[in-house]
């Protein structure tokens, strides 16, 4: 997986986020301030613009640039969160010109650790972490060495995590002020997290050569 591959993956995520923008807006309108769809789409567009010139750069360079671009384009709550995730992930694969199957695990771990380090949210607080943490745990716990199998498990766990946010009362972020009133509506940040996660799963599926990373 080269820098160029990372870019096509980011492109797929951007497309999926655009498809879900109105849904994200609608959820954030109910528990937050209604900007989450715009924020994610804007942020990912900024990523695409910034990484275009980096087709021949190593993955770490693409990821680092993506993080900076996302942060500067959106700020907001998700800016520092995903920026940190990108930067940590870049750090985990630093120097490598191409990523192999092994690196996927390190990258995923760094991603989730970055989010956690910045936002300090845990499972059950009605945030994106209700997707990312179970997804990472399912990925890691999966006995198979097959990357696609592991990713499928992650996507499934992420989906379940997203669904669980509906019944939760928010404890972190803007929605936490609503407390009980936030119950009954799923968390917008959890949905966008799932959209990203599912796009990653799909991207690996459609890759020429299937699961084999080079």
């Amino acid at each position, binding site marked *: 997986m080269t820098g160029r591959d990372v870019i096509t993956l980011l492109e797929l995520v951007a497309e999926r986020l655009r498809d879900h923008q109105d849904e994200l807006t609608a959820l954030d309108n109910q528990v937050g301030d209604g900007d989450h769809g715009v924020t994610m789409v804007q942020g990912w567009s900024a990523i695409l613009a910034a990484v275009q010139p980096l087709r021949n750069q190593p993955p770490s360079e693409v990821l680092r640039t993506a993080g900076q671009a996302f942060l500067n384009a*959106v700020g907001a*709550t998700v800016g*520092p969160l995903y920026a940190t995730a990108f930067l940590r992930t870049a750090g985990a694969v630093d120097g490598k010109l191409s990523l192999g199957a092994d690196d996927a695990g390190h990258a995923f771990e760094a991603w989730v650790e970055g989010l956690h380090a910045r*936002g300090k949210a845990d499972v059950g607080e009605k945030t994106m972490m209700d997707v990312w943490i179970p997804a990472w745990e399912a990925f890691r716990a999966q006995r198979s060495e097959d990357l696609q199998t592991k990713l499928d498990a992650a996507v499934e766990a992420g989906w379940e995590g997203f669904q669980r946010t509906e019944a939760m009362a928010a404890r972190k972020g803007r929605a936490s*002020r609503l407390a009980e009133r936030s119950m009954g509506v799923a968390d917008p940040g959890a949905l966008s997290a799932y959209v990203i996660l599912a796009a990653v799963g799909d991207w690996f599926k459609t890759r020429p050569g299937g699961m084999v990373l080079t």
Partner: protein
Amino acid sequence: MKKLLNNPERAIEEMTEGILAAHRDVLRRSARHPRALVRAERADGKAAVIIGGGSGHEPAFLGYVGSGLADGVALGNFFASPPPDPIVAAARDSETGAGILLVYGNYSGDVMNFEMAAELLATEGIPVESLVIADDVGSAIYEERSSRRGIAGEVLAYKILGAAADQGYALSPLVGLGRQAMENCRSIGVAWTPCTLPTTGVESFALAEGEMELGIGVHGEPGVQRIAMGSADQIAEITLTTVLDDFPIAPRRVALLINGLGSTSLMELYVYLRAVMARLEKYRIEVGWVRVGELITSQEMGGCSLTMLDVDDNLLDLLRAPCYGLGWRQGC
């Protein structure tokens, strides 16, 4: 959505251009970042107060940069914290050796971005302090008051700290003053018609004719409770009681800020003020200072907030000191 805009994605940029064209005597753009605005004339040798937050609340936050107010502001997207870069840019443009005080509302986004900015500034060897404003009684109970969000009380903080910094308070007493003042500051908001974010065109909530949100913030987020919309007197009663009950010791002299959220007219705000002041008189709480107007808005939302600050002579002097920003001008 009917708004006087061109491309909503460009609205913040175009607004800034309009402001800079009209108010060169007050504001200029930082050469370091297009979303950082600073005082037209840098004030030397004083602690610099840097503020910021999401756009769409005008005159907040850029209206509170100017003499006797803040030194610089970072503009975020609509209802979204600015990233660290413009915060750092505004700070570096304003820094003249006496350090930086970052003042912002208690939102997860603002906290993370401003903290990142503070780290970056500290790395450069610039002394930085932060003051997080958490005045909204509606957003958390007293025991969890440090997790409250910041609403109109932020504006009083900018005024007080801006005046104090201009009068020569060094960084450490400045942050002490701000912290103490804000510990005695309480707000509560109410709203009955929604706002529309220009970038989505979606109304923030739908309420029936007789309903309102109690404890609403300045982003159209739902409030704490949906209740029947009452008369001005009834709304004064419930909001004032909510605020007063939150003070561990009832204040004896207060400053009041009645903030209109967008489409609520000045007439309504004064009818409401009358009801608030009548009740304070009954409780024998002296009103030492009042301001009524649109100080921090939520687009065209219908509603208002009440902010009460327990004041001493020093705070009153700072509130009355001259200042000149787009959102607050007196004595200049």
